[in-house]
């Protein structure tokens, strides 16, 4: 699964383009974080990748094909409000499978191949430590548990691309670190390509092997920072990590 932004422009009507003739590549299995101040367009970029918004110029190609609607094998996890309030943890985790089952394997709404008939998400709930909460409603569980449910729902669909929009920003520090580690583990286990939007410099440095820095619009040239040690054990406490955070802070002030 390869992503290519080819001379891509995106502008909301009457506003300065957020991206202008923007070129960017993501190789399969890479873990990217997109960092930038509020209003820089990082969420818009994620929505473009999710097929929920479309370029106003240029092309967004995934595996060589233009993206015209949400891909059945991309998973999107948002900061909040992603779960159905009337459904239990288990029912929420099953939702993606049920949507795919609803349409059948049409290749548009669900991947071609077999229509999911088995909506068993228990292994995922167990993997994410939610099995005891499977009959609880979202209002009965913590923010961290809600995000775990959203992750279970997405991973149950076996995606190849995981898109996350500030998924942990409303969590406390301990929960945030916990879920960051879990996401890194799951990306490795499932061989996922990850694109995570964040406004937190520390999170960008911990999660992204590559960091795309966006500034105030229009963004014309991608600023990419390589961070090959991200995700390795002990990186959180290492000097290179602290130096990188420092660098990123300085660069953010410039852009």
């Amino acid at each position, binding site marked *: 699964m390869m992503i290519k932004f080819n001379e891509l422009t995106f502008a909301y009507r009457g506003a300065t383009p957020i991206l202008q003739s923007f070129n960017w590549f993501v190789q399969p299995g890479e873990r990217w974080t997109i960092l930038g101040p509020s209003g820089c367009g990082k969420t818009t970029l994620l*929505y473009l990748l*999710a*097929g*929920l918004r479309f370029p106003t110029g240029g092309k967004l190609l995934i595996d060589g094909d233009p993206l015209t609607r*949400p891909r*059945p094998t*991309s*998973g*999107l*996890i*948002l*900061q*909040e*409000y*992603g*779960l*159905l*309030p*009337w*459904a239990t943890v288990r029912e929420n985790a099953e*939702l*993606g499978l*049920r*949507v*795919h089952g*609803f*349409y059948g394997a049409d290749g*548009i*709404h*669900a991947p071609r191949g077999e229509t999911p008939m088995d909506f068993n998400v228990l292994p995922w709930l167990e993997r994410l430590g939610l099995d005891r909460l499977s009959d*609880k*409603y979202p*209002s*009965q569980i913590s923010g961290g548990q809600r995000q775990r449910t*959203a992750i279970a*729902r*997405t991973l149950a*669909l076996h995606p190849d691309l995981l*898109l996350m929009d500030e998924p942990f920003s409303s969590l406390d520090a301990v929960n945030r670190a916990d879920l960051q580690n879990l996401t890194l583990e799951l990306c490795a286990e499932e061989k996922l390509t990850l694109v995570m939007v964040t406004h937190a410099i520390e999170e960008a440095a911990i999660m992204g092997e590559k960091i795309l820095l966006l500034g105030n619009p229009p963004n014309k040239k991608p600023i990419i920072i390589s961070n090959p040690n991200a995700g390795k054990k002990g990186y959180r406490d290492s000097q290179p990590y602290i130096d990188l955070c420092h660098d990123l802070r300085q660069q953010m002030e410039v852009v």
Partner: protein
Amino acid sequence: MKKRDVFFAGLAIILFWQISALIIDCNIMPSPFIVIQIFFKELFGGDMLEHAAASLWRVLASMVLSVAFAAPAGLVLGQSKRLNQLFSPVIYLLYPIPKVVLVPILLLFFGVGDLSKILIIFMILFFQILVLVRDQAASLPVELLQSVRSLGAGRRALFRFVYLPASLPAILTALRQSVGTAVAVLYIAELIATQRGLGYYIYFNGSTLLDYPVMYAGVLAMSLLGLGLYFAVDWMEHRLCKWQFVK
């Protein structure tokens, strides 16, 4: 609310009624015990059951019809800004009109049969459900819709998995809130040009036969009809929308 508290509240009301009857000591205020006796006698030996069935049928038919028409209309308006902009002013004007004043007009157009009575209750429930379902559908967080869309959901799946379940509490809340008004308006509608229904039964026994205990039994029956429907909707809400009541 605890069942025990409701039970004691009911007892307190009966006690208050009994004390009032003792103080007033006149045939226009019979004791609740006499009324309850007559209620059962009329229900199983008299013709009250037939009248109650006519009233119940009218309310239930209106409820089913109003849900069938208002819920889809509310969902469409809630999803489409353009349609909502078009119809909002019309709803804004029609919604607050006390529908009961339309009874004479409906009688002119639809005659004295069941249809005019069903239609008047339908109109009350219709607007209440329409507005609540529309607002509920329109207030769904964009993030929720986007995240379900990202799972592959198109229009049909969004409808099935998001809009439909989201509108259920709105429908039940609207029914619960307006079922009392519906029964009140039914009473008015049944006063006019009919010989079936609890409204007629109350009026006929009170004003023509001057049989006050039977009239009171009719009032009790109509109150129980309203109360029963309220409890039924409330029960459905607790059963179908469990998530709203969890702690």
